[in-house]
């Protein structure tokens, strides 16, 4: 025994070890599981409701059950600021909230009418919301969107982040994370692209479509005046959790009737502004439909529609909706954008007669070079496309991957080139109109240095860089 104590005395670290065991073992054994104390938030939604911020949390509460289904629910609360709303949400669910697992952040339609960055600042810097969270917006309330996202999993086995991840990889081919938003926001151009998913009623009527030219509403519910949104479950709770069915139905009511009014009045015009002829029709139709169904959709289910649109954000506010065509135009100069389809019509040559050919881009190389000509910078883009013919419509309407079809005749090449140029010009026109250099011409000029940097620094209106740069697009097509 004496020897034991002698050895013990010789090794004081053993004493430290025992102290640590004595202190921490009971704490570790008897402390309750973290899941009893914490709720894991997998998606965050932020809305403006009158003068308050409404925070909705798609929450996963780990519970033991015999199936493999996750129990998710949307908890929402209001507050004067995000911190307050988050605090109220914690009270409502009786658990502490951890945001570090939140993979998606949805910003409601109305909140994007103001600078969103200061609102998000608290979440990303203090509340540990990862900057890698996918950052998207919608045409409705973020709360309704999150509720609808639950059915994605139930009906289709899809998750929201998977849906956006597909777009990021194949449609936008640019990041739509909180980080990429901040990168745009804090850059000289102060612009960025944010992913957009539409929320529609099951009868396909747009809930509060932006194309419908909706104006006047500045918040998610209540201020539209016609839907009785102020009565929703979350409202009476004074920031407590809201009943799912109730609030969903009510805000559907308010926003669809709103969409009906404005869509019916001005749908055609607004559609024309944002998306050309097709958009005009859609705006009109949607407006009309939702107008007519305004009184009856309160119980209808909503679904999320992914049609590859993005929202252009400038100074933290939404300035424009870019449809899939414009996104495709922008992707022409994006080397990572592979898999896009290019369709050319009225092809007449030895093989085809009035055919419509659809090609898929399998390979792409883009060489960008800046030149200065007559004191004006020119961005020259040499794009080489490796194309695969994947569909023929016309006289030879069967898909034949014979070698003669894979040869790109001069006529086809010219048509493809013209199509790409038209698409690219459309995209640049849109960016120029909004003075939003999301293609980073500013960065290129700054890193090129010398006369380019000098040119940029001399510009009176630096935001308008795209209107001061000329573009040359050279398309070279190869068959794959």
């Amino acid at each position: 025994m004496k020897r034991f104590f002698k050895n013990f005395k010789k090794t004081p670290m053993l004493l430290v070890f025992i102290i640590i065991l004595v202190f921490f073992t009971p704490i570790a054994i008897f402390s309750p599981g973290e899941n009893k104390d914490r709720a894991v938030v997998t998606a965050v939604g932020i809305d403006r409701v009158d003068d308050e911020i409404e925070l909705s949390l798609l929450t996963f509460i780990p519970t033991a059950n015999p199936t493999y289904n996750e129990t998710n629910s949307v908890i929402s609360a209001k507050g004067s600021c995000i911190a307050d709303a988050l605090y109220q949400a914690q009270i409502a669910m009786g658990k502490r909230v951890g945001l570090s697992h939140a993979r998606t952040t949805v910003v409601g339609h109305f909140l994007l009418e103001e600078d969103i960055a200061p609102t998000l600042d608290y979440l990303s810097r203090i509340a540990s919301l990862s900057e890698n969270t996918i950052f998207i917006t919608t045409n409705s309330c973020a709360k309704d969107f999150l509720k609808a996202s639950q059915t994605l999993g139930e009906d289709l086995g899809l998750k929201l982040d998977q849906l956006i991840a597909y777009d990021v990889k194949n449609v936008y081919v640019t990041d739509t994370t909180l980080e990429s938003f901040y990168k745009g926001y804090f850059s000289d151009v102060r612009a960025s692209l944010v992913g957009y998913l539409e929320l529609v009623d099951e009868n396909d009527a747009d809930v509060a479509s932006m194309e419908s030219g909706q104006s006047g509403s500045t918040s998610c519910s209540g201020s539209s005046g016609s839907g009785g949104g102020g009565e929703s479950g979350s409202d009476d709770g004074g920031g407590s959790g809201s009943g799912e069915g109730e609030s969903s139905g009510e805000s559907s009511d308010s926003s669809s009737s709103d969409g009906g009014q404005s869509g019916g009045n001005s749908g055609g015009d607004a559609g024309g502004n944002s998306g050309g002829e097709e958009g005009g029709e859609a705006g009109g139709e949607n407006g009309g439909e939702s107008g007519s169904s305004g009184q009856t959709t309160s119980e209808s289910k909503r679904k999320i529609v992914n049609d590859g649109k993005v929202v252009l954000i400038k100074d933290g506010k939404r300035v424009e909706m870019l449809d899939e065509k414009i996104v495709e135009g922008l992707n022409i100069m994006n080397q990572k954008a592979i898999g896009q389809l290019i369709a050319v019509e009225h092809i007449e040559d030895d093989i085809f007669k009035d055919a419509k050919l659809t090609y898929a881009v399998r390979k792409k190389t883009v060489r960008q070079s800046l030149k200065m000509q007559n004191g004006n910078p020119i961005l020259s883009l040499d794009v080489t496309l490796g194309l695969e013919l994947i569909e023929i419509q016309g006289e030879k309407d069967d898909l034949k991957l014979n070698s003669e079809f894979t040869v790109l005749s001069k006529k086809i090449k010219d048509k493809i080139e013209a199509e790409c140029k038209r698409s690219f010009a459309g995209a640049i026109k849109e960016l120029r109109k909004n003075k939003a250099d999301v293609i980073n011409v500013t960065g290129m000029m700054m890193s090129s240095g010398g006369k380019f940097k000098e040119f940029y620094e001399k510009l009176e209106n630096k935001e308008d860089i795209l209107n001061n740069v000329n573009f040359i697009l050279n398309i070279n097509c190869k068959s794959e």
Partner: protein
Amino acid sequence: MKDLKISARQTGMICVMLIFANAFLTLPSLLHSEVGADGFFVVAGLMFFDLLVLGTFFLLKARFPDDKFYDILKDHLGKILAKIILALFMIFFLFKSLLAYSVVLLFLKQQVYQDQFELIAIISIFPVICHGVFCGIRTISRTIELFFYIVVAGLVVCIGISFTNGGGMPQLFQTQIQSFLSSSFKHAFSFGDYLLLFIIMDKIEIKKGQGRKILSFALVGITLMLLLLIRFYSIYQVTAFMHTNAIVDISSVPAQFTGIGRLDIIAMITVMMMTYFQLELFIYGFCSSFLDIFPKLNNIHAVVLYIITFFVLYYGLLSQYDFFIDSTENYFPYFMIVVNFLVPLTVAIIALTKKKGKEYEKIF
């Protein structure tokens, strides 16, 4: 503290471990808010200066291979000046350990624990490091030797993961030379880590040609640091100022790939291990300087004094993290002019004034 010698290889590993935790965490973002991506050059410049200090150490070691730093100073500058210099070293190591501890504690609070963490940190850090200090520099360096490749692997993995995050070329050469110099001056306290080698110089055994080994290790550490910095500025560019934990931020996987789990844990473990060793080395430096000033006291007095001073400063005066960071930027740079510039310069002059008949030991 036991007086067993350490090898050149172990000394080299100490040089890698001494790269201050702050440089891997908050420093890159602080620099970005001042000089943008040119913060890379600030760190490169300050590390180059540290290499010059390391060169001074080699010079002194070649001239006085077995002598104690205090004895060298006493012989050439007199007892009082020697004690003043060591007192300055004591203050330097005390504040270095304070900064390392507070930065890492904040980092762990953000990443892992949110409350009641301080007591856990105290119980799990201080007994271990104080024990290391009691056991002496040889024990510390052998422990470092044991974990060295794990730490380096952790750093390499973090930098490796950063390549999955993409990123473009950071915009370099955007600041004026004046901003560059003022930023270098402001953040001088985050460097100067090789000063510890002077304090332990009598315990380092460098055989002929082994100086190269120490230098290689130091260069490995510096390269890793600069690589991390360039990746950090490449990934985050204009938002780098928002990311206060550089090593974790570069290794956080994009949301699309979160299916493979969170890999931040690698960065956390690496930082925690480095912190243990850094704190041990800084406390050792503090205690060793203290015992040279007060030779009649023993290591228990030194460690107790350190612990008391540390906690009084930490909880009493410096509990305000912002105030502390501000102090390191506003007041400590002047202190660093004396400790990291004037002292090495004096030492270099001492080493270069060769007495007749006495040759330099060949360590390269």
